[in-house]
């Protein structure tokens, strides 16, 4: 089974802090993704990566950046956290083969106060 591990289940940060959310997958997947989930808005794509050191903006990249230095690890960075970034953050990976599903981690519930 694919395992996608997010380093923290819950985080509380202050406005203006720099925040790192870490994600590791163990299946040698090519693609990795960061989504956020908010009530009534579903899952929205922040950033994704098709290969090491490559990144692409998703639908809502503002206020975020990402890093992929190794194939198995994809980090989401909030340069200066704001209260509107309070959300559930979900990391996912996929193999890059046609018709392969995304596999999600258990999420990080981030609260910015």
């Amino acid at each position, binding site marked *: 089974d694919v395992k*996608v591990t997010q380093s923290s*289940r819950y985080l509380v940060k202050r406005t203006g802090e720099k925040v790192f959310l870490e994600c590791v997958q163990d299946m040698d997947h090519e*693609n990795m*993704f960061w*989504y956020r989930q908010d009530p*009534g*808005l*579903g*899952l*929205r*794509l922040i950033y*994704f990566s*098709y290969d090491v050191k490559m990144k692409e903006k*998703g639908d809502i990249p503002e206020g975020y950046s990402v890093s992929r230095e190794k194939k198995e690890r994809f980090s989401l960075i909030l340069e200066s956290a704001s209260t509107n970034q309070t959300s559930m953050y*979900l990391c*996912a990976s*996929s193999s*890059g083969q*046609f*018709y*392969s*599903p*995304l*596999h*999600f*981690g*258990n*999420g990080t*519930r981030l609260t910015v106060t």
Partner: protein
Amino acid sequence: DQQVKQNSPSLSVQEGRISILNCDYTNSMFDYFLWYKKYPAEGPTFLISISSIKDKNEDGRFTVFLNKSAKHLSLHIVPSQPGDSAVYFCAASNNGAGSYQLTFGKGTKLSVIP
């Protein structure tokens, strides 16, 4: 513009009966469709998928139907069980164009009543 729409935010069904969750899409380039199930405080788990070359895919109690002309898909759960109570997300992608990112609907919360 919402490309994947789940118009029912919630659905209640009696245990043992059929649950039907619906999803509409607007992008005719989508060629791969998936359903995910999500429990509170957990990540979404993949349930079932269908490619655009098919109109039906079955896996145990779960069946997904695709109507390309209507740009509509549905998930049938028969029989429904209390453990099926969760939020269900419909998702779509354009794999043929080399895009593996999924576009999600807003979800439907299913409650199966014992």
